[in-house]
């Protein structure tokens, strides 16, 4: 579809970091999730200021892009910690002490699920199954799945980061 230059183009034009990411995906609206993943990978979160640029590139309304960005648990519209720790909170991990693990990690990091440590180092989140249910409990540290973990596994990772 041909596009006219509008006031919106002038507002953020090609300067938004999301614009080239959209172009990489041929500005296809069905690639929106891939685009949001890539934006988050590059910027650490999906800045609300980028949503109009994405909407413009894909020829969608801002409301549509906002709706998608907020529907999926993966996307963060606000900056998060430098690292992401996702503890599996689903049934198979529960059966192997997952609930106690969550409590211990929350206590150790002094945050609740969904929060970021005061030094901005780690965002703690819940995830529902990593497909490692025969080696429970499991977790994902940044993009690395880890199984048969315990509170000490988490402590040593965090101490390593803080050292």
């Amino acid at each position, binding site marked *: 579809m041909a596009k006219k230059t509008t006031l919106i183009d002038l507002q953020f034009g090609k300067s938004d970091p999301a614009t080239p990411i959209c172009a990489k995906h041929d500005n*296809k*609206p*069905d*690639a*929106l*999730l*891939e685009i*949001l*993943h890539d934006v988050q990978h590059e910027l650490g979160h999906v800045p609300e200021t980028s949503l109009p640029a994405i909407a413009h590139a*894909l020829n969608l309304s801002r409301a*549509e892009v906002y*709706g*998608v960005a907020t*529907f*999926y*648990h*993966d*996307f963060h519209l606000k900056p998060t910690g430098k690292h992401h720790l996702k503890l599996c909170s*689903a*049934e*198979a*991990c*529960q*059966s*192997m002490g997952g*609930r106690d693990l969550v409590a211990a990690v929350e206590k150790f990091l002094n945050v609740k699920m969904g929060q970021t440590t005061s030094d901005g180092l780690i965002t703690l989140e819940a*995830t*529902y*199954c*990593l*497909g*490692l*249910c*025969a*080696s*429970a409990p*499991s977790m*994902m540290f940044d*993009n*690395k*799945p*880890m*199984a*048969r973990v315990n509170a000490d596994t988490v402590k040593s990772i965090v101490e390593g980061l803080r050292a």
Partner: protein
Amino acid sequence: MIKIYVPRDSSAKAVGADEVAKAIAVEAVTQNISIQIIRNSSRGMAWLETFVEVETSKGRVGYGPIEAGDVKRLFAAKFYEGGKHQLAHGLVDELPYLKNQERLTFARAGITDPVSLGDYISHGGFEGLKKALVMTGAAIVAEVTESGLRGRGGAAFPTGIKWKTVHDTKADQKYVCCNADEGDSGTFADRMVMEGDPFMLIEGMTIAGLASGATKGFIYIRSEYPDAIATMKEAIGIATAEKWLGNNIQSTDHSFTLEVRRGAGAYICGEETAMLESLEGKRGMVRAKPPIPALVGLFGEPTIINNVLSFAAVPFILAKGSTAYKNYGMGRSRGTLPFQLAGNIKQGGLVEKAFGITLRTLINDFGGGTFTGRKLRAVQVGGPLGSYLPESQLDLPMDYETFAANAAMVGHGGLVVFDDSVDMAAQARFAMEFCAIESCGKCTPCRIGSTRGAETIDKIVAGIDRDANLILLEDLCQTMTDGSLCAMGGLTPMPVMSAVKHFPEDFDKPARLQAAE
């Protein structure tokens, strides 16, 4: 050169397989022993990961669970010659866990290098597709229908009938979509196919394309599976380069292309119409049916949607014939199901068996009982929407109809075992909580009812108006069952009410405490 196998499956990598492989490589150099390390798929014996295998003149010998710190001792025991060691398990093919399985879909598990096309072909790969390339679409559909294969994603709908609908519908563009959202807790067979035998999924989907006239396919993989995403993309690249995908497959006039799409952490996107919305770049809102996706699916076009395991069963059916597949199973549940033993179990992993095997055999004979050694109290079968079954129901045979008749479901074949430390009221509450977190929000009973359900269970547990609240909970569950568009709201009552029914004592704790005073 000595061949040493170290799995690349994420169940192995998550417990240190990469470090083990590295330690072996380093030690081999130090000791000046010439070895080749092959990163194979996993055998599916999760409790033995990292499971290291060595090729010997008698066959492969296995060692596990191995950690990087064990490697020096393995070398001291001359494991590279199949030497004795306390973590040695002897010939892998003789292990009862594997020997007693009926691996049709997982025939190559642990044996091949997942991204070696040569390995795939020399172990029977693409035999089914080669046949399909010279068959009519209708003949392929007939073969799949005849096999009795039913959808492995949960609903158990006959795969052949779905394919026939798409085959019979005229359209310029049709699609094949693979549901690799595998959101159910306690399941990992889809992940193992994608990480361990990706060409098999490619083959199955391509056959679906030939059967229906679809030339484009998508695999929707959950973002929680980074390794599966990477392996599938790599395999698609290799298959395309070698003309097993793309235009003019193997110089025929058939074409089929495949693309991987990532999910974004929404359980509901496993529901097939929500998955279609998500594939179109939208919020994962469930669509009302009819129209069914086979008629109006992706981008409004006729679409075959199947689970990973459904597609993965197809190459065998085409290669060996529908009868060979149909001969396994019981009643109307034909073929095999890769069961997944998970949770509090000693020998967790993947057990592919014909339908008809009992839960008890799976849990005790294969699984070796609970991990903790405590008494088994409950098993959740079929994911977060599946029932909690008590010990007394362990003799139920795994069969779609038998389970349905007992207010339970086989689902995707996942079994999550709990020992007697479990609090079943907490599990029931979690089912409601999970529904509240993952509801797409379209229906009130699901969106609001689940939150009310969790609150009601809290009151019951706290001993507030217990009898009245139990009745309220049952009412609420009935409303969710009747008034939900999809199984998210519709089946959440299964784990909840099964917990209430089979484990009433857990909903009665404060009262018992009072009585004791």
